[in-house]
C-alpha cells in the first residue's frame, strides 16, 4: 500500500480515532493531541503498514503505544477536566435527558478510572466493535487475556453503575 495517499484515509478515520483517544485519555484536548501525534507517526511509518490489514486497527495500536509511552504520565494531572467540552455538546441536543447525560458521564468516569490495560480492551471491543482477535492483535496480547480483561472491566462498570443508585 505504498502509494495511496495515507492522509485521505486517515482523515476518514478521525472520528473513530478521536473517540478511542478520548476513551484512553479521558480528556478532549489530550485526545486530539494524541490523535495528531499518532496520525503523524502513522504517516512517517506508512511503509510499515501492511496493506490488506485494517488501517483502523493499525492506528489504534499506534495511539495505544503512543499513549503508553508519552502521555500516560500526564494523565494524573488531568482527571478534573474529563467532562470539559462534552457538556456543551450534549447541551445542544434538546432531546437529551438530564438522566441520560449524567449516566453517560458516569460511564465515562468509570471507564477513566479503570486500570490502563482494561480500559484499552474495553474501548476496542465494546466501543469500537473490534473482535476479540482483532483487539488481541492491536494490544499484542493473548486472546484469553483480552477476554479476562474485558470481563473484569465490565464487572467493574456494573459495580460502579449499580453503586450510583439504580
Amino acid at each position, binding site marked *: 500500500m505504498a*502509494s495511496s495517499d495515507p492522509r485521505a484515509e486517515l482523515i476518514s478515520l478521525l472520528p473513530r480515532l478521536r473517540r478511542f483517544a478520548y476513551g484512553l485519555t479521558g480528556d478532549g484536548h489530550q485526545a486530539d493531541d494524541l490523535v495528531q501525534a499518532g496520525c503523524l507517526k502513522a504517516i512517517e511509518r506508512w511503509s510499515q503498514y501492511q496493506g490488506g490489514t485494517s488501517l483502523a486497527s493499525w492506528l489504534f495500536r499506534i495511539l495505544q503505544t503512543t499513549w503508553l509511552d508519552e502521555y500516560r504520565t500526564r494523565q494524573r494531572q488531568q482527571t478534573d477536566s474529563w467532562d470539559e467540552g462534552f457538556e456543551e455538546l450534549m447541551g445542544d441536543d434538546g432531546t437529551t435527558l438530564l438522566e441520560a447525560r449524567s449516566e453517560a458521564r458516569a460511564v465515562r468516569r468509570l471507564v477513566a478510572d479503570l486500570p490502563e490495560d482494561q480500559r484499552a480492551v474495553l474501548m476496542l471491543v465494546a466501543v469500537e466493535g473490534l473482535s476479540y482477535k482483532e483487539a488481541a492483535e492491536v494490544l499484542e496480547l493473548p486472546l484469553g487475556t483480552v477476554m479476562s480483561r474485558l470481563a473484569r472491566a465490565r464487572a467493574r462498570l456494573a459495580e460502579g453503575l449499580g453503586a450510583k443508585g439504580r
Partner: protein
Amino acid sequence: MTIDTMTLLAYLDGQLEHEADYERVEQALQQDAGLRERLQALVQQSATIRSAFRTKLEEPVPPQLVAAILNAPWPQTQAVGQRSKPQSAADLAARPAVDPAPPSPWRRLWRHWVGALLGGPSGSGNQGGARSGAGGAAAGGGASAGAGRGAGLVAWAPGRLLQGVALASLVWVVLLLWVWPQAVPSAPRPHWAQSGAPVHDERVLTALQAVASAQVVRIGADTLEVLGSFERAPGQHCREVQELRQSVGAQTQKQTLAVLCQTPDSGWEVAFAASETVPVGAFETASGAQQAALQAFYEGLGAVQFLSADEENARLTAGWQGPAPRP
C-alpha cells in the same frame, strides 16, 4: 452447568469459537433465569457504554487536526525532496501503474479527479494511465507559469486548472461528508447569495480553514475547489473558490466562482460571487463573464498578491490567524 461471565460475554459479542459453545450457552439460558438476567444486564451495559461515547463520534473534527494531517509530509517524496516542490506530473501518473496493490476507493477517486482535471476542460476522454501521463507532463511544464500567480497576476488562462494541478503537486479528494456524519442539511443552500453574507456551511468553513489550494473537496454530490489564497489586509485572508452544486432532479448544476474573506470574528464572508447555471456533465471551468467579473473585483482591491504554496501552508498551519510573516 455454570457459564462464567467471560463465556457469557463472548456469547453476547459473538466471539465464541465453536458452534457447540453457543448451543451450550443457549441451553443454559433456557434453564437458568439468573443467567438470562445476567445476559440482559450485559446487553444493557453494552448499549450504555456505546452511547456514552457516541457524542464524540458525532462531534465535528477540529479543522486544525485535519490541517495538521493534510500538511504532513508525503512519505514517498520525503526521500526525493521536500514536498512543497511540485512533483513531476509524470511521477504522479506513473504511481498507480507501479503499485501492485489493489486500488483503494481513495485511489480510484484520486485517479478520477486527476483524470477529470487533466482531461476535463477539453472534454476529451483520454484518461487512461499512459495518456494522462502525457497530459500530466504538459501540466508539469506549466508549473513555472503557474508559479507566476504568486506575482499577483489575476489573468485567467484557459489552462488554469492544469496549472493548479501542477502547483499543488497532487490533487486528492477529501470526503468531508464523512467527517460530519451528521451533515447539516439545514445549512442554507445558496450560502453565498450576496456579498457580505457570512459563510455558515460547516463543511465549506472547514475547507476554507484547512484545505490547501488546488485540492478538490467533495461535499456529497457537489464539489468545491480552493483555487488560491491572498492577504487582503494585514491579518485578513481571502480564498478564491469554485463550487459546483447539483440542482436536485435537474440536468443543470450551479457553478459559482467566489472569493471568501475572513471576518474580524474569525469567520468567513462572501466578498465576491458570480454564479452560472451550466449543464451537468463535463467538468466546467468558469465562464468568460465570471472571470471578467472576478478580474474587475480584484482590480478594485488593488494589488492582489497570491500566496505561494509555502506561504499558504504556513497560514493553514496557523489556522489563518495573525498577519502573514513577511520575508
